[in-house]
């Protein structure tokens, strides 16, 4: 696998927009270069009722950045006495990452969220030093991101309902990771709607 630090542990995540719903999915592999060690390492973390972040890259940084972000969001909620909005969470994350501009964390991030009152959807992605993106329809991060992007663009339609969105997201992820030896071994998909969040675990190829 070479000595590329972002593919040392492997892993991938994908987010797609629907009509007043969002899907975010990630694989479950935890490995060290060639060797797969566990298949229960999910990379999606919840920061608020309808805000989720996924980190892909070096596993130690996935854990550290998610925990450090949680620390900051907890303090925010205590001080402000209100729940986080997705764009606020995104700003906090990119700020956290840019603080380490010259000794960065090795994680790429996906921030997704939904406003339960208006149904407005947000998907943002970030590189490992906190570059901001627009609010996009489709975003992927991780070692298999290029393969999943292609499939995602193919399956994406504007204004999908929750079921169509789930199908499109899972098919893009499951088939994309077949072309990457550092991701796969199962997947988990979160479909976030205004009134509920559905979590589904997918079996997939165990190779």
């Amino acid at each position: 696998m070479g000595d590329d630090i972002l593919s040392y542990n492997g892993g991938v995540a994908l987010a797609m927009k629907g009509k007043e719903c969002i899907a975010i999915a990630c694989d479950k592999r935890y490995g060290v270069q060639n060797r797969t060690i566990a298949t229960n390492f999910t990379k999606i973390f919840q920061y608020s009722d309808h805000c989720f972040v996924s980190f892909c890259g070096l596993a130690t940084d996935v854990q550290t950045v998610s925990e450090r972000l949680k620390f900051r969001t907890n303090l925010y909620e205590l001080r402000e006495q209100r729940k986080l909005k997705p764009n606020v969470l995104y700003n906090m994350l990119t700020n956290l990452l840019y603080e380490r501009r010259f000794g960065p964390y090795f994680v790429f991030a996906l921030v997704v969220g939904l406003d339960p009152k208006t149904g407005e959807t947000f998907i943002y992605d970030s590189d490992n030093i906190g570059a901001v993106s627009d609010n996009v329809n489709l975003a992927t991060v991780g070692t298999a991101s290029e393969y999943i992007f292609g499939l995602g663009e193919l399956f994406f339609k504007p204004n999908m309902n929750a079921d169509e969105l789930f199908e499109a997201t899972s098919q893009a992820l499951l088939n994309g990771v077949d072309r990457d030896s550092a991701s796969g071994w199962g997947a988990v998909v979160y479909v976030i709607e205004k009134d509920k969040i559905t979590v589904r675990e997918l079996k997939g190829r165990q190779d």
Partner: protein
Amino acid sequence: MDVLNPMTYDAEEDQLRDRTKYSQMDKHIIPVEFQQQPVSTGTTIVAVEYDGGVIIGADTRTSAGTFVMNRFTDKLTPLTDQIFCLRSGSAADTQAIAQVVTYQLDFLSAEMNEPPLVRIAANCVRRMIYQYRDDFLAGMIVAGWDKKLGGQVYSCPLGGLLVRQPVTLGGSGSTYIWGYLDNNYRPNMTKDECYDFVLKGITLAITRDGSSGGCARIAIINKDGVERIDVLGNDLPKVFDL
């Protein structure tokens, strides 16, 4: 430097070989994301003798770095009608060796007017690997059936060794199943027991090794010829769900 037990692999020499191998300019001109990793059949290959023949098996993944170039490769390459080789290591190197040895054996069988012996095929492979040992990255297993000694399995690993073994493994995925072999292999197993052993071993290695994956291709070689079986992904035996 131990003369009686020489090192079969020298890490420093390997790095030196790497540095001189590809164009040095590539590293400076091409951004790291576009630098291509060499294509390798990072792999799992298994071969076992049984009374009357051999059973050989391999996974079906060819990768270049982390990219899976082929999900359904055929790593069971025929050298003659009843002798196969299993390839692991650099895809280009092993394909070249197999091509050259196939020609050599074809010529030999025309000269001798009978099919070549498995040991001769294995020696041809071994000779090529040994001659170009500083350049090739090829670990091969040659297995087949001949009239003289029946089913035989010969292992031809990296440096150019030739050794006959009743059962042998190869490739990056083999490291995960040596323990399985030690625990589950017994001499004089029946054909079906050997088949299950090979299939289970490949499945276990596919589950753990990132460079092995896809399906399992198995071949049974005996006096009647070659029977090829492809076991697709969902038909692989169930192993512990990690």
